[in-house]
């Protein structure tokens, strides 16, 4: 399946309530991305409740400069979270449905070895 088909899909929860839009797909690489990385696998979907795409990903990083821009973009994309792939029940051609009781995870990109 093409990854671009996932981007921009509406996301609803088990009770058919809208939750947001898929703005990115988070992958995990069991190794160093800069040196012969092994196969990346999908960790989850990055979902934004308010916006349909993310400009530059300030809401996912620790970067805070330039100050005004970072604050503005972070405010605009507030509420962005990651849904784990285990919590995805169905990927349709026009929406994604999450499982009941899904967890909202932090969108911040922080590496853990």
């Amino acid at each position, binding site marked *: *399946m*093409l*990854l*671009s*088909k*996932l*981007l921009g899909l509406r996301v609803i929860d088990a009770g058919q309530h809208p939750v947001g839009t898929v*703005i*990115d*797909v*988070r*992958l*995990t*690489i*069991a*190794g*160093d*991305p*800069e*040196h*012969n*990385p092994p*196969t*990346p*696998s*999908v*960790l*989850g979907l*990055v979902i934004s409740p308010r916006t349909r*795409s*993310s400009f*530059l*990903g300030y809401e*996912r990083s*620790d970067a805070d400069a330039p100050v005004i821009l970072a604050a503005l973009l972070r405010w605009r994309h507030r509420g962005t*979270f*990651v849904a*784990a*792939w*285990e919590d*995805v*029940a*169905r*990927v*349709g*051609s026009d929406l994604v449905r999450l*499982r009941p009781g899904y*967890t*909202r*995870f*932090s*969108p*911040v*990109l*922080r*590496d*853990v070895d």
Partner: protein
Amino acid sequence: MTELPVIHHRGQLVDARLHLLDRQLLDDEDSPAGIVDDLVLSGVELDKDIPEGTEAPQLTSLLSGHVVATRIFGGGPPRSRLQGIPRSLVDSIHVVVKLKPTDMVFDAGWMERWLCDRVIKHIPGGRHAAE
């Protein structure tokens, strides 16, 4: 920054749209080979319920081959027109995506070859590099 829990994972995180899509592809000699236009995921199908406990989809290849119109206006050419690059050829993912040495020809397209054969080669100096 937020009080949401951190998802458990092993390894480095890479966000597809933020870190992979639209990045330049360079071959092992640092020549441009294209732009990452799309990614192919295995292990997931559209419009089918995903049973619990299924393994996570994996990235199997990169696609390249968008043209001017699709770059500016969105959408994409048909899948058959895009060149697939197996992810095993990826040497490094950073500011640019670098590929390992390969025999694969990064299709510059008929336009590049046509211009090369019909126009450039006939201009004096067309075959020589500047110093």
